[in-house]
């Protein structure tokens, strides 16, 4: 495959790919499990609103939780069955905290709800976006941002280029690769649909040069279209959206803007394939491809219904090869440990690696930083990780923010090359969440101060009014005064109402 890009971002690393582990077998479909656990929080934004209660019978593809507001996504039943319970279950999240989930007991009939494909060529863009808001489709590359929000554009903001992210730069992960090999047509059709919705002039697919079969499949599917397939060198993290845009087009997205402000929008291959399935076939988002790899007997990719417990997947992959039972969600560079084997598959789960001491040896002892700046050479965002490390370590959080800590994409390149084995990414994660928590508590303190000040002012005002009323009563003599008094109390009451209204407007 010929590389046809000339732009290169600073840094990046080339870890061992380990992708052939899981590309030997085609995508297998997993049988329906005994239980499906669907978290209400599988996406960025507001949690979905429940639409069912325990005991309800649901059909495959039926909406069981509705998107709450704009930045939210719906959840659909992956198969037909009965709602067993709504309870707190452990989620696949680094915190290990539980959250509300809908548990479905399948009836194994797998009856579809009436599928309603949408003739997307005929209806207007607003209606299409409204329809997609009901589809439950979120970014399946791992960012899980509601897709319909990415398709909504302002009137004065046009998208001229649609970029399809087929890079899949992290080692071990091959779900996008297999999807491209087996279902390239769906991807290309989905890309064309998305291009039409966005009214983009150009559509480019960015793929790394280690995916030869996928490239051929995509090229074949895109033969009669104007979609360009561009090959980029295999370098981690080329799959990061802003890095990919730079590799393909040489445009650096400013740090305070989104790429859509520059007229470029990026979608993952699996997301556009899901858009195709929803609009052409009427199937909402109920499953995804997950790579099971690492220390399992037969690593491969599975098409899994959301909510399937992870233990089913591990058994389907032949079972563990080690007794350790440690699982990593995501890739080895950005993934995290899963709290248990019984977590459900969610929209964000693209890969699960079973860890073993041979694959991921225990970390070596941490030495002090020797300021060699290898991390700065490896950083794809051209930050200075050693400065951020010193500030995060000494909790000088304002200085860390000044040195652009929030530009860090937590890719792990810096820790990968550190001779002192310092866990740099953990320090940045700590510093970022600490700064966000401190900002939140400062805001809360400001609100409390305002409320207190308003209360003190209100009490002052009430005291004054009471004193006035008393003074009036003391001065007053019979009728004329009584009439005047009545008039003035009415006027004072109206004043108060007006003042209240004014204060409410000001707050």
């Amino acid at each position, binding site marked *: 495959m010929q590389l046809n890009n000339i732009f290169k971002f600073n840094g990046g690393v080339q870890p061992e790919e380990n992708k052939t582990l899981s590309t030997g077998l085609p995508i297998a479909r997993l049988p329906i499990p005994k239980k499906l656990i669907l978290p209400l929080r599988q996406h960025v934004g507001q949690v979905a609103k429940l639409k069912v209660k325990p005991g309800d019978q649901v059909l495959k593809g039926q909406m069981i939780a509705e998107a709450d507001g704009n930045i939210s996504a719906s959840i659909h039943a992956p198969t037909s069955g009965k709602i067993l319970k709504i309870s707190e279950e452990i989620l696949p999240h680094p915190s290990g905290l539980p959250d509300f989930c809908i548990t479905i007991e399948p009836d194994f009939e797998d009856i579809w709800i009436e599928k309603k494909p949408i003739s997307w060529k005929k209806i207007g863009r607003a209606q299409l976006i409204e329809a997609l808001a009901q589809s439950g489709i979120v970014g399946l590359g791992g960012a899980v941002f509601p897709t319909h929000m990415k398709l909504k554009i302002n009137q004065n903001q046009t998208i001229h280029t649609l970029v399809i992210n087929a890079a899949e730069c992290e080692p071990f992960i091959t779900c996008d690769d297999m999807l491209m090999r087996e279902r390239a047509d769906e991807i290309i059709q989905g890309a064309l649909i998305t291009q039409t919705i966005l009214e983009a002039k150009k559509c480019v697919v960015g793929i790394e040069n280690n995916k030869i079969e996928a490239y051929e499949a995509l090229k074949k599917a895109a033969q009669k279209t104007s979609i360009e397939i561009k090959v980029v060198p295999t370098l981690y993290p080329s799959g990061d959206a802003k890095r990919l845009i730079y590799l393909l087009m040489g445009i650096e997205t400013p740090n305070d803007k989104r790429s859509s402000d520059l007229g470029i929008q990026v979608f993952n291959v699996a997301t556009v394939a899901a858009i195709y399935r929803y609009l052409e076939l009427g199937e909402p988002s109920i499953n995804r491809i997950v790579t099971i790899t690492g220390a399992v007997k037969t690593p491969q990719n599975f098409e899994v219904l959301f909510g399937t417990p992870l233990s089913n997947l591990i058994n389907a992959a032949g079972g563990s090869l080690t007794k350790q039972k440690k699982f990593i969600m995501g890739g080895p560079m950005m993934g995290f440990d899963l709290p248990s084997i019984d977590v459900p598959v969610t929209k964000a789960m693209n890969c699960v690696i079973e860890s073993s001491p041979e694959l991921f040896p225990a970390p070596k002892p*941490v*030495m002090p930083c020797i300021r060699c700046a290898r991390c700065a050479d490896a950083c794809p965002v051209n930050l200075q990780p050693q400065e951020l490390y010193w500030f995060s370590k000494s909790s000088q959080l304002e200085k860390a923010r000044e040195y652009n800590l929030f530009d860090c994409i937590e890719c792990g390149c810096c820790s990968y090359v550190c001779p002192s084995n310092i866990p740099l990414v953990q320090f940045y994660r700590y510093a970022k969440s600490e700064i966000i928590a401190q900002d939140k508590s400062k805001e809360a303190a400001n609100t409390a101060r305002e*409320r*207190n000040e308003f209360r*003190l002012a209100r009490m002052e005002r009430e005291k004054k009014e009471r004193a006035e009323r008393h003074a009036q009563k003391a001065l007053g003599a019979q009728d004329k005064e009584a009439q005047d008094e009545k008039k003035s109390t009415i006027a004072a009451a109206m004043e108060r109402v007006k003042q209240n209204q004014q204060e409410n407007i000001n707050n």
Partner: protein
Amino acid sequence: MIFLAILLGLVLGYSAIKFKVDGDPMVARIDAILPQTQCGQCGYPGCKPYATAIAKGEADINQCPPGGDAGAKALAELMGVEFKPLNEEHGIQKPKSVALIDESTCIGCTLCIQACPVDAILGAAKQMHTIIASECTGCELCLPPCPVDCITLEPVHENFISWKWKYPIYNIQKAQKA
């Protein structure tokens, strides 16, 4: 020599008046550091009076339990004095809590509503009272006035929104066990 001194003096005096920066008065700057719980544990009826007292020099910087040692440190830096750990006579730093009214016991007397410094209790005479949890600062001023003792303080547990990554503790000796 004298002429030079007079000239420089005039220049300095003019700049002091012309380029004077109207920064926040000291009281506002101290108040910005205080946690705004408005609990009164410092001995003053609210955070602003305590800030005023610190600015005047009447109060010490370590009298605020909700601010804890971290708050005392920030105040010490701002005032340019030496850091003193929290004076526990005023109370200990407790984890963030919000008040909770037991609705089956509440009699609707409005005494707690009058006590709350940030108006975080919703209710009226003979109507059910309830705490607006998002505005409650955990100051505990509503607990004493309640005649039926129906208000409790519940600690706020970590949830998905408030979860933070912890400070990585990696010691040379400990890393071997990781």
